[in-house]
């Protein structure tokens, strides 16, 4: 169990590093990277819980594989969006892109 707690505290740290990065950075690429960090923290959680609590099942592992796949696709889409935003606003600074509001 101490092993599990140890790994969980890594994923905890990873998640909040991602959150911190997402909140403090203004560069969209950096924010995307921060999101990936958070996703991976979740992945770690899945794997850890599967391994230590339900060792006879494979669900958690499958989830982590799915998330990795989707994260790759998502990154492609997000970068495409960012490129389009850059074309329109000549910037990828999140502060400059605030037209989606009332």
């Amino acid at each position, binding site marked *: 169990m101490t092993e599990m707690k140890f790994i969980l505290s890594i994923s905890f740290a990873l998640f909040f590093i991602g959150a911190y990065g997402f909140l403090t950075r203004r560069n969209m690429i950096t924010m995307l990277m921060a999101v990936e960090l958070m996703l991976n923290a979740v992945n770690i959680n899945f794997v850890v819980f599967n391994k230590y609590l339900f060792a006879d099942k494979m669900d958690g592992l499958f989830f982590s594989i799915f998330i990795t796949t989707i994260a790759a696709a998502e990154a492609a889409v997000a970068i495409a969006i960012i490129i389009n935003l850059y074309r329109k606003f000549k910037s990828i600074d*999140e502060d400059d892109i*605030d037209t989606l509001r009332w």
Partner: protein
Amino acid sequence: MTKTKMNNYSYISFVLIIPLMVFLITGLFGKKLPALSGILGTVGMLIAACLSYFAAYNYFMVGGRVDGLYPTVIAFKQTWLQFSPSLTIDIGIMLDPISVMMLVVVTTVSFMVHLYSIGYMHGEERYSTYYAFLSLFSFSMLGLVISTNIFQMYMFWELVGVSSFLLVGFYYNKPSAVAAAKKAFIVTRFADLGFLAGILILSFYSESLDFQTIIHRMMDSNSPIFMNANAASFMGVSALTWALCLIFIGGAGKSAMFPLHIWLPDAMEGPTPVSALIHAATMVVAGVFLVARLFPVYMQIPAAHDLVMYVGAFSAFFAAVIACTQTDIKRVLAYSTMSQIGYMMFALGVSGYWGHGGLGFSASMFHLFTHAMFKALLFLGAGAVIHYVHSNEMGDMGGLRKKMPVTNAVFLIACLAISGVPPLSGFFSKEEILTAAFENNKIIYAVGLVTACLTAFYMFRLYLTIFWNKPFPLSEGGGHEVPGDVHHSEAPMTMKLPLLILAIATLVAGFIPFSMYVSADGTAFESEFHIIPALVAVTAGLIGIFTAVFLYAKKNDKPEMISAALGGLYRSAYRKFYVDELYLFITKKIIFNFISTPAAWIDKNVVDGMMNLIADVTGNLSESAKTLQSGKISSYVMWFFAAAIVLSMMIVYVF
């Protein structure tokens, strides 16, 4: 009566459909063919009149009595709204003696007025609109009289009110006409509130809106429905009495009974043929017709029945006194109409129900019939005079008998008829009314007799002032030249012809043995001719006539002396006993100040204020809520995380 024979009357619906079609055609397309609309309306009314005569002939002569009674024929009936299996609103056509008689009266007078208006309204800018309104009125009035159902009657009753409003306010650029139209509409509408309440009470207790069913259920004093309606009481008066009194208020409003009469004299602002049609012959007798229609129910409630009698008698006398002092010829005729309708009302009030006891009822219907003819004649004659002189004031007239021989003759006939001089129609009907009153209530009889005397007096005052008195034109002393004799002759043929036809009707209508056809319970009876009451009535009329001849045949100063001698009485009668002022005082000073002003304040400050408050709060809330959507992702994420943390805290520590 067999089934096939009953269906024979379905052509009556054309009597209604034709005016409605004429209204639609002239109303929609009249502007393109202005000359045609008059002819179209007149021809349409002629056909309707012929159909009514045919129906009357069939009903009284061919169909005849069944078991000694004229049957009530439902020519057509269609359920329109069904509230419950027993309570429905139907649209239908009911024929019984009074509705057949009213069909004849309405179509005849309406046809005469249509014909007359071709000449009278010639060159009018809104000529086709006028005819459209006239047809609308005819349609509504015909619908009113053939109603099978009290609610159908109410709808047509309102339609009649609307068309009256439109026609009174026909000269809409004249402020007085607009005011008169509004007054007529508001006063009758106010009375109709009573009518509606009465209908609701009556139909609530009798569980039906159908005339026949109501009458059938209410006739039997021992039936549970009647007992229930009579037992339920409000403020010490039974529900049925309330219902009948409220319905009578509606009738009194339309029929210009005191104290709801104030609109009728002002309604004379409309074109004169309209006054002849609506405010003399047809619409104003709707109240009488309504009471006659529900007469068996009124018989059951003596209090409501007496109310009809006293209101009628008082109105008859009151209006006659005012008519003696008015100087506008149409206003004299208006008060005379009110007085004669009062006659019809109190005749209903003194009437019994069975057999000869129903003399008052027959007499009332008879007087309605003859009055429609001679009063329409008087109005149309007055219209011819106004057309000629271009003035309504008696002072501008005089000595017109040479200039207008036809009008003079027919006017004289009508005046003699209304004064009750034999053998003209008014004599017979008025004599029957007075006989009925004499047999039932001596006080009412006395009032009726005095009114008859006053009627003769003011009618001949009117007649003599117009056609005799002083020479025409009034070049000297009259103050201003009246250009009557310069540019036109008496009246075009289209105006003279209706006058002549109505004059003939006035001459012969009295010989119809009315009580053989129209009676309260449907049985026929001979109205015996009593020589003594007839002599008394005629004497009363003659006294009035001779007084008028003495005062007005030649221009002299006796009328002024008498009016000066009467002083306050004359002045208050001239001012119509200050009823208008009283109404103005009540509405302007009391209702406006103590009800309307506070109501307006509450509306402006409380009701509107509440709405404004709600709107302001919502606006402010949304104003602050919309700043949340800033378009900055980081702030959204901040909120998201904060909420997620709070929620997980709650899940962990609270639940």
